[in-house]
């Protein structure tokens, strides 16, 4: 503490602190903080019973269950497959690896509307995948399964890109030590590698889950947006906005914002945990 105080008391050699911090705070306030505050300002125009009634109306409740359930499942599936993809990309050599590695980021780079219409058309009754699923009695278009597929698509890079660097930095000596002590490959993975990857996996899961909760563009085309069945929460907000009922839209937005903020906090703690693990390994 004393060290850091004496350090900041020292003359600042580098210029521009006030200018850059000032502009940062001004721009942050103007673009992000003041508009976000408007949400909480708008909710004060509702009375408490009105607010409560809006956020617990049946269509909203159904949308929370769907949004949370589908996001959770999609993130979970991505943890499994994302880990496999990251593992394969770090540990093995195969034809086309560089292209595959670059393509993993596609869900980040592909606009959500494009992903949305593509998935909807692929999984429709006549689509490339939909017509294969049809004889099996599986329907993806306009069902909750479709929402799950879209959320899996957009969540994929989060797990791969959080696990990949940790896996690359993993010290092979730990694995060698474990196996020289008699552990088989499966035990090494389960007892040595996986515990070290857990913080990264959790961070990736939380990032994918948080992204999925707010997702709109890639979901609405495949979902069909049937009330009580396939309406995600952002669609409910959109519906209220289309009817110019800003109070109701804002009330539901507040619920989502609070959940997002809690998740953001969790992610920060998880990331700190991941990094701590990382530096421990280096030391």
């Amino acid at each position, binding site marked *: 503490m004393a060290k*850091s105080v004496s350090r900041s008391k020292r003359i600042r050699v580098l210029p521009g*602190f006030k200018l850059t911090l000032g502009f940062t705070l001004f721009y942050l306030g103007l*673009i992000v903080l003041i508009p976000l505050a408007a949400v909480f300002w708008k909710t004060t125009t509702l009375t408490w019973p009105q607010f409560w009634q809006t956020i617990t109306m049946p269509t909203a409740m159904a949308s929370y269950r769907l949004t949370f359930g589908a996001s959770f499942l999609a993130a979970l599936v991505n943890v499994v497959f994302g880990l496999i993809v990251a593992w394969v990309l770090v540990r*093995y050599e195969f034809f086309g690896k560089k292209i*595959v590695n670059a393509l993993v980021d596609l869900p980040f780079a592909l*606009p959500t509307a494009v992903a949305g219409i593509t998935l909807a058309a692929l999984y429709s009754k006549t689509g490339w995948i939909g017509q294969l699923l049809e004889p099996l009695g599986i329907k993806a278009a306009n069902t909750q399964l479709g929402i799950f597929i879209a959320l899996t698509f957009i969540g994929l890079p989060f797990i791969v890109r959080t696990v990949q660097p940790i896996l690359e930095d993993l010290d092979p000596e730990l694995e060698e030590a474990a196996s020289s002590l008699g552990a088989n490959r499966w035990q*090494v993975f389960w007892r040595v590698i996986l515990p070290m990857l857990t913080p990264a996996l959790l961070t990736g899961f939380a990032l994918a889950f948080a992204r999925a909760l707010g997702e709109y563009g890639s979901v609405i085309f495949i979902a069909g947006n049937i009330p009580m069945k396939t309406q995600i929460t952002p669609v409910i907000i959109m519906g209220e906005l289309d009817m110019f009922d*800003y109070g109701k839209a804002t009330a539901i937005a507040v619920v989502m914002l609070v959940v*997002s903020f809690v998740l953001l906090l969790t992610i920060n703690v998880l990331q700190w945990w991941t990094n701590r693990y990382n530096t421990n390994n280096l030391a």
Partner: protein
Amino acid sequence: MTPAVTTFHTPHHVVHRHTTSEPPFVRRALIGVALVFLSLFLFLPLVFVFTQAFAKGIGFYFETLRDPNAWSAIKLTLLAAAIAVPLNCVFGVCAAWAIAKFDFPGKNILLTLIDLPFSVSPVIAGLIYVLVFGAQGWLGLYLNADNPHFPWLQNWLNDHNFKIIFAVPGIVLATIFVTFPFVARELIPLMQAQGRSEEEAARVLGASGWQTFWRVTLPNIKWGLIYGVILCNARAMGEFGAVSVVSGKIRGQTNTIPLHIEALYDDYNFTGAFAVASLLAFLALITLGIKTWVEHQQAKQEISK
């Protein structure tokens, strides 16, 4: 190498391979699972976009893109990105400079606040600007207020029928919001890792602040900056949810490329929708290409250091 060394090394090598790698069939199975999963979720959709785009031939493709509404959507998207990306780029450099080169209390809070737009649903990102600038929002209340603080401003705004929501300024603002953290997120860790000794040395040797930035900092961060800018640009041109709330979706006027895709899709003009979508898919591929190239350059820079 003498034979003795070789015989000494061989068993060690075998043991090494055996203990820190999987049997070949497990390896092949894992590669297989990963490739099937990725082809299903990434490769197939990508191929599908381009196949559908040209389903009615190349003539229809260019006819769709030459349509005045499509052309106006392309121009609006380029305009929004041309405003949002440079602004967020300047912000990103400023924020990274302040955070990475100086110590001050509340730095972690600031970092979290910069990340906020990432965790807000796009629909809510649009909603907040409706609440500030919409008819029922702060600006709307101000326009109709009986005792405004600045009567001249109220008069000016009313006289010019000043509109932000359901007009171009709202689209630009929503785009700025959703792409807000991209450049900053890329530069902050990079500049923190580089420390401040090089800049301090430049200053001690007599360089001015600007010289230090242009000649020392910028060359060090250029790849990260390019990376941040292309990600920011990809998102700016592709944003759908936030823009769809504030745009009002007037064809030929307030439709961006993604909104135009939605309009075509809703008209059951699927081939047209995919033709326009192929532009954005192509942009995504270019973005991924530049990203890979930048990572390659970054790795080269690290090695040469």
